[in-house]
């Protein structure tokens, strides 16, 4: 078309990945600037405010780091499932179940000391989140239900379940009718690191990231997951238990998202309330793809997209831009990266 054609490369483009990500960022920022222009705002000022809000001040950096914690954990989880080509779109719901699981422990054992209660909360969050991911896994294996659809639908059920709890049985009688649970006791709250606003959940992230990296790289099970991701036929030839591995990756995926929910409730809001559901689980999908499923890159892109969220909030305040603008930018970045990935295996040639 238009005198150009695609030609398959003999070898994948080794420098492709970073160039494509940067190119995609530039392209999506460009389109965003155009959209600002259409809204009658100054594009240059808009991008400047975005930069200010994302990286321009210490509060912005801190805010982004805080937001990147749940995004990172969810993305680490979905990346594990994606690696096996199991399309878990349900981090959002698994996040909600994790928050519910942690709250259950916090509300039922309020008097336990922190060193007992905290592990219990993390354990219960992992079990709840893992269970929520186990449902689509088993549906896929037994009934061939497409996991993209089932995980997505379970997100809505999870959110409704969370709302049912905070509007009903777990509602704080002293909340003047607001849908929140009672505030957690001291042992159930993850504390701040020193004087900063950063909490100890950040350390959990680092631990989980290193743990998953080592798991995938050094263990036999991690290798089996990688092989199973290459296709069911190869897995069958290698005599791998494909079904069990599917369940395992979904459970890991759900448990990590569950931890994100646990940390968000305990450290940030100190109670369960519907406002914790702000779409981290969906952003995580973008993050995992941007990072091409690698834990270190997941950390970087989780931070970048968290910064984008903070920056767009700043734009909303300063320039009266609709809240949906953030989602639009996120979507633009994902689309341009996905489209750009074609250039790793193809090159564009002028027609002779």
């Amino acid at each position: 078309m238009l005198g150009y054609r695609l030609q398959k490369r003999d070898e994948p483009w080794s420098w492709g990945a970073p160039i494509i990500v940067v190119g995609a960022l530039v392209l999506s920022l460009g389109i965003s600037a155009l959209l600002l222009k259409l809204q009658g705002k100054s594009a240059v000022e808009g991008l400047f405010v975005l930069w200010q809000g994302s990286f321009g001040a210490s509060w912005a950096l801190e805010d982004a780091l805080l937001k990147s914690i749940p995004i990172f954990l969810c993305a680490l989880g979905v990346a594990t499932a994606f690696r096996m080509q199991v399309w878990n779109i349900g981090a959002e719901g698994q996040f909600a179940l994790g928050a519910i699981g942690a709250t259950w422990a916090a509300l039922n054992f309020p008097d336990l000391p922190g060193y007992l209660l905290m592990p219990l909360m993390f354990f219960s969050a992992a079990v709840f989140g893992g269970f929520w991911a186990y449902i689509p896994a088993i549906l896929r294996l037994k009934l061939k239900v497409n996991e993209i659809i089932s995980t997505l639908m379970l997100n809505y059920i999870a959110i409704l379940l969370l709302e049912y709890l905070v509007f009903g049985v777990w509602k704080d009688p002293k909340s003047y009718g607001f849908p929140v649970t009672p505030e957690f006791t001291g042992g159930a709250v993850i504390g701040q690191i020193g004087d900063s606003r950063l909490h100890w959940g950040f350390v959990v992230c680092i631990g989980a990231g290193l743990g998953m990296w080592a798991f995938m790289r050094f263990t036999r099970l991690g290798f089996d997951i990688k092989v199973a991701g290459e296709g069911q036929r190869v897995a069958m030839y290698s005599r791998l238990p494909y079904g069990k591995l599917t369940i395992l990756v979904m459970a890991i995926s759900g448990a990590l998202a569950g931890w994100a929910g646990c940390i968000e409730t305990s450290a940030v809001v100190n109670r369960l309330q519907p406002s914790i559901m702000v779409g981290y689980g969906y952003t995580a999908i973008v993050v995992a793809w941007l990072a091409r499923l690698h834990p270190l890159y997941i950390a970087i892109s989780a931070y970048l997209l968290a910064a984008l969220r903070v920056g767009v909030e700043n734009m909303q305040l300063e320039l009266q831009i609709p809240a949906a603008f953030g989602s639009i930018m996120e979507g633009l970045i994902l689309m341009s990266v996905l489209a750009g990935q074609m250039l790793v295996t193809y090159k564009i040639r002028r027609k002779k």
Partner: protein
Amino acid sequence: MKGPQDLTRPDSQKATGFADAAPLISLKGITKRFGKVVANKDISLDLYPGRIKALLGENGAGKSTLMNMLAGRFKPDEGYIEVDGVRKEFTSSKDAIKAGIGMVYQHFMLVETMTVAENVLLGQEGSFFINPREMNDRVRKLAVDYELEIDPTARISDLSMGEKQRVEILKLLYRESRVLIFDEPTAVLTPREAFRLFEALWAMTRLGKSVVFISHKLEEVMAIADEVAILRRGAIDDEVMRDKITSKADLACRMVGKEVLLEVTKEDVEIGEKVLEVKNMTGIGLRGINLHVRKGEVVAIVGVAGNGQQELVEGVSGLRKPPKDTIFIMNKPWRKFFAEMTWNNSMSYIPEDRLDLATARNLDLVDNLLLTTGKGFTKGPFLQRDKAAKVAQELVEEYDVRPGRIQALAWQLSGGNLQKMVLARELYRQPHLIVAEQPTQGLDISATEEVWNKLLEARKMAGILLITGDLGEAVQLADRVAVMYCGQIMDEFPVTDTAKLDNIGLLMAGVRE
């Protein structure tokens, strides 16, 4: 094909009036190479109007390469294509379409949610807007002319495989293709639908189309072809008029061929205990199979593809569950063997599909080594990748797998090198039973020789079940030969029995003396 249906063409179906016609398309001395492998060697073919030419050949004989050149996807390295006697260069598939060449592939390319007529007109040049009724009428008329009964308003997703195939054909007829090439068209059809396809093919020839029918089903070729061309190892081995072929067995004999491409010396090794026994196995597409393989011997299963070889391999290699108490490996019942299977001193399977079954295309050679040997490089929960890398490097050097880097990904290797890697890995496991499926398909002579020698050497530790479509390979490697037809073993005999070997074509065609 089963059932009593008579496939022969009635006289009323004969195409007349094209006796002296010039060929529509001529291939002139076409050669195509991929690296060292010659996929097509000096192929010349004439396609005449009103005639059906059957192209027979095993998988890997070069059929798809030839098709791709006719479709304008590949350019021949030597030789050229003539359209109506004029030399033409196809630079893209558009040129091939313009020349009137159309393909019906095994995988249909249809939009499931659209109607028959919409699919037929999709992508055709012409006016931008089309009246749906006129569209339906045009397609209906075309269908009637060629006896391709179909409702133009039906949705593709509601159609059977046979009906979908008719839509594919209508697409070609609508853009006035004159040469229609069918790639194993009956593979997806029921016998009844297959016969209706034949009627449509006859209708096409009566209207002056030229048909190329690619198949390895002998009955069908006997029933519908006017001319038969046999493709083997990339070259046209034989080309005859259908009238000259006296019987199915005659055709089978021609297909098998006799020439010896390569000879290897075969040392005697000691024959040991039974490593594989198949006892009266009926089910998963097989009937009454009895077979055994001892350590130190090679048993070759030969036959035309699609006669139960794949089912047998899948059963033995554990990909598919056979009926109870029919397969015994190393003296254990199937179920027990696979439950207790260890990574070494066990069974190795070298599949026909090297990329995507035997290897993972996007993983490097170390990871691909670990596919089946992983258990041997495991310590507690950990994988000893460094140790595996060392072994991979040794194997790459010993088997001369090129390029010699263990970081290379499976898909970057040529067929021959990939096969050597698979062989290296599977022999590293010190198996007692080896199932080798078409181990030299698509390999050049030197790689074939290496694979043969390695397999013969492997007899010292294992019994080998060899599945091959190449009789030469069977003769060179095997101690005993078993011929399969329609899910049964027709006969089994020592390879030294030349009388039986000479008549192997009959057995492959299902004729018992």
